[in-house]
Structure formats: structure tokens, C-alpha cells
């Protein structure tokens, strides 16, 4: 895995952002961008340079929810083929069902498993869809 692979993470909860930063630091990811809210998401994501190769979205956000952001990404040809993975604490049956039917490329449940995260990342980048609900 390239250590400088461009990853975007959209998350409004500061603790969750910090967890992600710790993981990135721990496994040596150097190109992690974090948006702290979803305001002007479409503009901001289009302006990103380099273009992210993987996007993690929190679901419960404002003003745009994870689903709305996914919709924006899917409408833009720029992000064709870029896996969009939900990273959420809402992993009840119905919620996961909705994630799958809306077209997410996978889901990593919070709490994130520190140990298995690098393996999961690799598999996602290889085009696999992971629905890691049971930790």
C-alpha cells in the first residue's frame, strides 16, 4: 500500500477525527484530508488536489448527510471508480440495509478496530466491498 495515498474523511465528531488521525499516524498514512463539516462539500471535494482515491463519510452530519454527499459524488464523473465507504456508529440492521441499497462501497462500524484497519483498507482499495459491522 502506498503510504501517500490520498484519502478524504468527512467527520463532524472531534473524537472520531482524532481516532482517524491516530490510526493514520500509526500506520503512516501521509495524505489524509479531513473535512469537519459538509458545508459546500461539492465545491470543496471537487477542488481537492490530488483527487482522493478513497473517501470515508460519516452519516449523521449537517447540513448534508452522508447519503446526500454520496449522491453528490455519484453525480460527478470526477469520482467515478472512487470507493466511498461509510464510517458510522449507526449500524443497526435497517441503517446498514439503507447504506447497501444507496450504493455505498462498504461500511466500517465505529468503534474502528485498530488492528484490522490496515487489512480492511487494502481490501477496499483492491475493490472489495467490506461490511464490517461485528467488531
Amino acid at each position, binding site marked *: 500500500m502506498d503510504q501517500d495515498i490520498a484519502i478524504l474523511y468527512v467527520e463532524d465528531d472531534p473524537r472520531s477525527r482524532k*481516532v482517524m488521525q491516530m490510526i493514520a499516524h500509526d500506520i503512516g498514512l501521509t495524505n489524509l484530508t479531513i473535512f469537519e463539516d459538509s458545508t459546500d462539500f461539492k465545491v470543496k471535494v471537487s477542488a481537492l488536489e490530488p483527487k482522493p482515491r478513497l473517501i470515508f463519510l460519516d452519516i449523521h452530519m449537517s447540513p448534508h448527510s452522508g447519503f446526500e454527499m454520496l449522491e453528490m459524488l455519484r453525480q460527478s464523473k470526477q469520482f467515478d471508480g472512487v470507493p466511498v465507504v461509510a464510517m458510522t456508529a449507526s449500524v443497526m440492521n*435497517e441503517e446498514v*440495509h439503507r447504506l447497501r441499497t444507496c450504493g455505498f462501497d462498504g461500511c466500517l462500524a465505529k468503534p474502528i478496530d485498530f488492528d484490522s484497519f490496515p487489512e480492511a483498507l487494502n481490501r477496499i482499495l483492491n475493490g472489495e466491498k467490506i*461490511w464490517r459491522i461485528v467488531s
Partner: protein
Amino acid sequence: MVRLGNISLSIKLSFLLLLVLGVLLVATILLLYSNTATLTEEIGSERIAQEVNIMKNHLAEVEKQLVVNVNFTASNIPFIQAVGRRSTDTVTGLITTANNSLDMDDIDVVDGDGKVLADLTPGVEDAASDSTLLESALKGNSSTGILVKEVNGQDEISISAVAPVNNIRQGTVLGAIQMSQNIDDEFLRKLAFERDGVYLGLVYNDQIRARTTSSEADSSVILHSNVAFSPDAVKLVASGQTVVLDKLISNGNVPYAVAYIPISSNVNGASPALMVLVELNEIYVFQNSTLVKTIFVFAILAVIALAVIYFSLQTITIQPLNVLKTIAHMTGGQYDQRIPITGQDEVGQLAATFNEMAEAIQQRETSLQAARAQAERSDQVKSAFLASMSHELRTPLNAIINFTRYVAKGSLGEVNAQQVETLNEVVDSGKHLLNLINDVLDMSKIEADSLKLFVEDDIDVKSILQSIISTGKALMKEKSLEIQTDIQENLPLIRADRQRVLQILLNIISNACKFTEQGHVKVRAYAVADEMIFAIEDTGPGISVEDQISVFQPFKQTTTGLRQGGGTGLGMPISKSLAEAHGGRLWIESEIGKGSTFYCAIPIKSEMLIPSLVA
């Protein structure tokens, strides 16, 4: 065999109406028939009385004419002179000439001694009565009578008159003359002249000797059959009275009135009678046509009445009932339909009662729907609460577990072994808490019956098995345990909820690794018929028969489980429910001291499960 009770109401009503009208029709016909029969008899008795009088008059006229004719001849001067001279030739000549216009059947002349001077039928021997009448004439009396002669072996009956031939100057009787007319068919026809429908017969010695009808070929002619002949009446007639039969005689459906008239009581022994028949054909025809017309009119009226009653019943009863029947089905739960009430009769009352019932049902339905909606709402609230709980508990746990690990790894500065151990206990406690949250949420979903599977087709169970084996290996690190596998080659792909199958098998293998201190844990997987069987065998302490039941009951950990610590006591009940939600089974085979085997059977492709994502 069709039971009457199964036939539709309108057919039953029609049948009943037809029956009633049929009975009415038959009764009317019988009544009319008897009335017309009585009428015919009355008219018949009037007609016969009239005809009897006419015939008596005709007979009297014939007699009178005979008397006139015989006296006229007897008063003829040349005839008186010829009788006085006893000149047979002259007398014969005179009567022959006279008979050219009189047209008698016989004329006899005798002299004063009773010796025959002339006879128009010389070959025929005169009957004894001839001489009786002539003898009375020789005594100066003119009279009439009936003669019976045997001619060619047959009785010939004639009516005759006698008169004395008087010497006008001296007043002495010179002789006598007798004229007679045969009562034959011709005679009777003249007698019945111009009386339509009147037939006459001459009855003598219980036989009909002459008749107005000529042809025997016509069998329907009543005078040639003996149907109208009554010997009793004939006997009565012999005493000189006229007899009218009470009953009408029927010949080929045509009624006749019958009467007998004595022709003369002047003859000893013999009493010929005139049988009078009056044909009542006109009445019969009239009666028949009246009957037919009446029946026809009645039938038409009956049909009209039937139609009116039928359509009235249709409108008043059957149509409303059909509407009732249709609406009463309340297809598709349409309880808001009401029957239009057309009147206050029984059908209207029934409709009103039905509407009240429908109203009650509708109200109950509405309150049921409200209750259901209420229940659904509270279910939704509950689900939303659970989802929110899950989210709100997992978010801080994400920080707790991962921050602690980060610290324990020394990323924020050096930590000593004691600190690492303590920090790892925090991580383990956090993970335990997470498991507890997962299990409690799963359990509450199972108890609320709201567990939903995310069903996918073509799930490869090998990856699931690899996943649980690596988890098992991680769990048994510090124990002298060995994981064995016996996995059938070419396992079929299954239709299931991948995460839930994984959850079931993880629960089982975690328990196996937790409770087994030495020996092995063996994972087997094979397909039997339409089921995929997973068997996880351990060499642990085994589970008693009582505990084999309680292990699947929520919040009832086995005594060993409790002693061992950890675990929520919900894993096995949840796993069992998950297996059953797939249409599968979960069971144990175990013996204390010899280990346990947990079996999980999942249908390979259950029709009960519908894939959540349709490709």
C-alpha cells in the same frame, strides 16, 4: 339431485307462482266446464220440449189431413154410386185416380157387408186391425189408427184413417173407405221438415224401424247406433205418455236431448213411438269455443299477472337482496359501502340492519387500524430509540477503545508494562461493553420480532469459515489447543445474511475456545440435502442435559459459563434466533466430560428468504 334449498330465490318464487296459477287455471276450467254442461242441459230440455210439441202438432196435422182426405173421397157422388153398385172396376178406377194427387200408400174400399171392393195393394194381406177400423167405419164412425202389417217378413207400420160411405138420401151405410200412409223414412223426413238438428226415429218392438237419416255408412249418425235408445222409456211410452230423458246423450262429443212420443194408443198390443233427438251441436261448439276463449284469456291474464308479480318481486325483494349479497361480501375490506334503503318493508329493514352491522364493523375496523397504527408508531419509536442508543454508545466507545490503544502502544510517550496491562484491560472492557451493547440490541430486536436479515445470494461459506478459524486461533493463543478442520470440497454457495451467519459461527467458536482448556476444536462443514451443516466440536467440559436447554434461553448462562466470566449470556439465544430466522436450526450434542458439538443448519437456498438487493 338438486336440493330445493339450494335453488335461487327467484327460481323458487317463479316456481311457486307457476304452481298457484296452474291450480287457478285448472280450477277455472273445471268450473267453466261444469257450468256450461248445466247450461247445455237446461237449453237442451227447453229445445226438446219445444220440438216434442212441434212433432205432436205435425203428427196431429198428418192425422187430420188423412181424415179430411178420406172423408172427401167418401163424399164424392160418383164414388158413392160406384160403391152402391158394388162395381169393383169403377171403385178401383176412382181411387186410383184420386191417389194420383193424394199419394197414399194404401187405399181399401169395402161394401156394406165388409167385402173388399178395391185394394191398391192387392198382394198384401191386410192386418187384422184393417178390418177392425173398417168394421167401426161400417157402423158409421170415422176414425184414425195405426196399422201394423207384415210385408215381406218385415213389420210395416202405417197411420190410417177410415170413413163410412153413406147413401146421402136414405142415410144408410153403403160401405167404407180406408186410407193409410206408411210411417217410413220418407214420412219421418217430411214430419221433421225444416227442423234443423232434429232427428226422428220410429221405435217399435224395441227396435228403430225408420229414421230421418238415410245413410248407415255414417257411423256418427246417432239413429244408426243404439246409444240413444232407451227400453225403459219405451215401456213408459206404451202407456200413452210422452217421455223426455233427463240426461243428455252424447255421440262423438255432440250432446243430444232425447224424447219419446206415443204415436197412437189406439192399437191393441202394438205401441209404436216416435223417438225425437235434438242435436245440441251449436251449444256444444259454443261451449267449446267459450271454454277455449276463456282459457286463452285467462292464460294471457295469468302470464301478465305472473310477469307483474315476478317483476314486482324482482324489484321489491330480489334485486335489493342481490345488492345486499354483493355488498355483504365487502371485498377488499370495503366496509364503508352501504345499501340504499328503498322502503320500510322487511327488505328495507334487513338493509337497515345490515347497514348498522356494517357501521359497527367499520368502526371496529377503524379502531383496529388506529390501534395497529399506534402499535406501529410505538415500534418505530422503539426502533429509533434503539438505533440512537447504539449510535450514542458506539461513538464514545470508538474514542475510549482507540485512544487507550494508542496510549498503550506508546505513541504518546513511553508507558511501562504495568500501564500497558491496565490500558489493555480498559480496551478489553470497552470491547466487552461493545459486545454487550450489540447483544442487548439484537435481543431486543428479536423480542420485538423486528429482526431483519440482509439476504444475499451466492455467499461463499469458505470465507466465513476462514474468518472464524482465524478468530478462534487468536482466542486460543495461550492454551494448548489445536484447531482442526474438516470442510467438504466444492461446498455450494448459499442464500443467507452473511454477517448473521458469521455472527452465529463466531459465537459458537468463541464459546468453544473459551471453555476448552486442552485438546482440540474441530470445525466441520458439509452439505446434506438442501441444508448446509456447520458442526463445531470441542473437547471441553461438556454440557449437562439441563444446561443444554438453558443455554439457548436469554440471560441464563450455564453454571460453567457464569464461573468462567465474560460473555453476556445472550450469544447462544441470539444465534439460535438468527439460525431460525434463516429457516435453519441450532442444536447441541454433548456429554459431561467428553466435550460438546454445536450444530448449525442453514438452508442452502430457502424460498422463504428474498434477496434484499435485486440485481
